[in-house]
């Protein structure tokens, strides 16, 4: 029947697939078992003290970082992609250049973004370790993600819509903003959620640019830490391991929630384009 090599390869692929699944399950279960027993109400008190090590300020700060970063990255990314997809001639040098640049940016480790952010925003612009320096760094970091997904979303809009719009005498601007962009929104949203995932999970880029002060920032120039940074800070101090696990549970829930949302949206898109 089958050659032995086929059976071997079959087992190999299944083995590795199982390994991936098992490691994922192991991580989740490990975090849940070690974290849930330590999820106490004091961990959610309004103010952080070295006694309660509350994650509440970090949760609020995470939201701030996410919103501020999206506020900058999403419009910028969308306009860049519209330019690349709708306005530049196909196969032009600029597109190839920008595209390979975004691809390279997407592959750079986040520590490098952290160092760049520190030199650029913290020191050169003098924003210090702060909400704004961190968000600007995150913006640079997630811009490639937003551009790539938006590009794909725009490209997958049926050519017939554009033709139909032009044939009615509409100009490019009207066709792009009234027809193409609205139909691309589900795809763009999926990209934005992916970007949110990156922001929520980021530590290295933020430690160097936003500092680690566990407070809810009152101003753009104040330091703050996200949940991920908070967790890193707790686990760096040996006697807060339990609280670090508890924080990890919350972080895990948030990331799972975001991933589910993106999966649902992706499914909605495919259902819609059928």
């Amino acid at each position, binding site marked *: 029947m089958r050659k032995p090599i086929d059976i071997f390869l079959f087992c190999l692929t299944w083995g590795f697939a199982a390994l991936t699944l098992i490691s994922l399950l192991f991580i989740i279960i490990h975090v849940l078992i070690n974290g849930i027993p330590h999820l106490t109400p004091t961990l959610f008190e309004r103010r952080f003290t070295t006694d309660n090590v509350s994650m509440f300020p970090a949760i609020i700060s995470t939201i701030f970082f996410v919103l501020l970063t999206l506020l900058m990255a999403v419009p910028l990314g969308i306009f860049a992609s519209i330019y690349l997809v709708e306005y530049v001639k196909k196969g032009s040098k600029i597109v190839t250049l920008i595209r390979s640049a975004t691809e390279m940016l997407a592959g750079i480790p986040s520590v490098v973004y952290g160092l760049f952010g520190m030199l650029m925003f913290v020191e050169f612009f003098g924003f210090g370790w702060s909400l704004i320096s961190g968000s600007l760094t995150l913006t640079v970091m997630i811009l490639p993600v937003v551009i790539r997904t938006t590009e794909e979303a725009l490209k997958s809009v049926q050519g*017939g819509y554009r033709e139909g719009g032009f*044939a*009615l*005498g509409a100009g490019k601007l009207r066709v792009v903003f009234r027809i193409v962009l609205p139909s691309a929104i589900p795809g763009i949203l999926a990209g934005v959620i992916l970007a949110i995932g990156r922001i929520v999970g980021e530590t290295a880029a933020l430690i160097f640019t936003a500092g680690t002060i566990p407070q809810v920032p009152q101003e753009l120039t104040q330091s703050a830490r996200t949940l991920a940074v908070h967790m890193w800070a707790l686990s760096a101090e040996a006697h807060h391991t339990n609280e670090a696990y508890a924080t990890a549970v919350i972080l895990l829930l948030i990331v799972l929630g975001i991933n589910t949302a993106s999966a649902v949206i992706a499914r909605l898109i495919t259902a819609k384009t059928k």
Partner: protein
Amino acid sequence: MDSYGISVKGCDLHYGDFHALKNISMEIKEHRVTAFIGPSGCGKSTFIRIFNRMNDLIENCRVTGDIIVGGEDIYAKNTDVTLLRKNVGMVFQKPNPFPMTIYENVAFAPRTYGIKKKNELDDIVEGSLRKAGLWGEVHDRLKKSALGLSGGQQQRLCIARALAAEPKILLMDEPTSALDPISTGTIEDLVNELKQQYTIVIVTHNMQQATRIADETAFFLMGEVVEFDDTNKIFTNPTDKRTENYITGRFG
């Protein structure tokens, strides 16, 4: 625009090095239905897209010759392409309603030309849908997505959407090839009605359709017009041997 005919003299079109249309001359009369027939790839779509300058969207596409639409040279330097496309509507092979409500689809063109008042738009939407024979079927769901309509309804919506711009000429590129026979019949009846008010140019692969709706028919072959005459004449007594071969199904 005072006369709504189309007059083409010595028209050539190149896609890059490819000579797609060769020295075409043709007079399309107003308030008539003119059909383009011919085998796949002979340039029917390419030719019909000259009349509203849709070819502008294609890189490396060069058009030469005199193309007079409604008395004006539409390839003149000062041509307002937006105005041209308002006057020359187009319906495509695959129904392409925009992913918005039925109302928004029809109101798209008038909005483009600056009509903002709600009651004016309402009137245009109703009038256009009535002309396209769709009003009865959709008047109670104007605010629903156009994508929920059947293929035939979508195509009539696209016709309504084109009519809402108040064009003088309507170009239709195989408007029924994606539709079932009943929807096709509905659209053919519609075309017969619309020709009272509009000059209609239609590309079709269906010869029966050409005989049913077209007053005049042009037969295309490899970028040339082989014969252009009364539909009757073309289908019963063609002058050119190649036309005869084509309509009798001997090739193409």
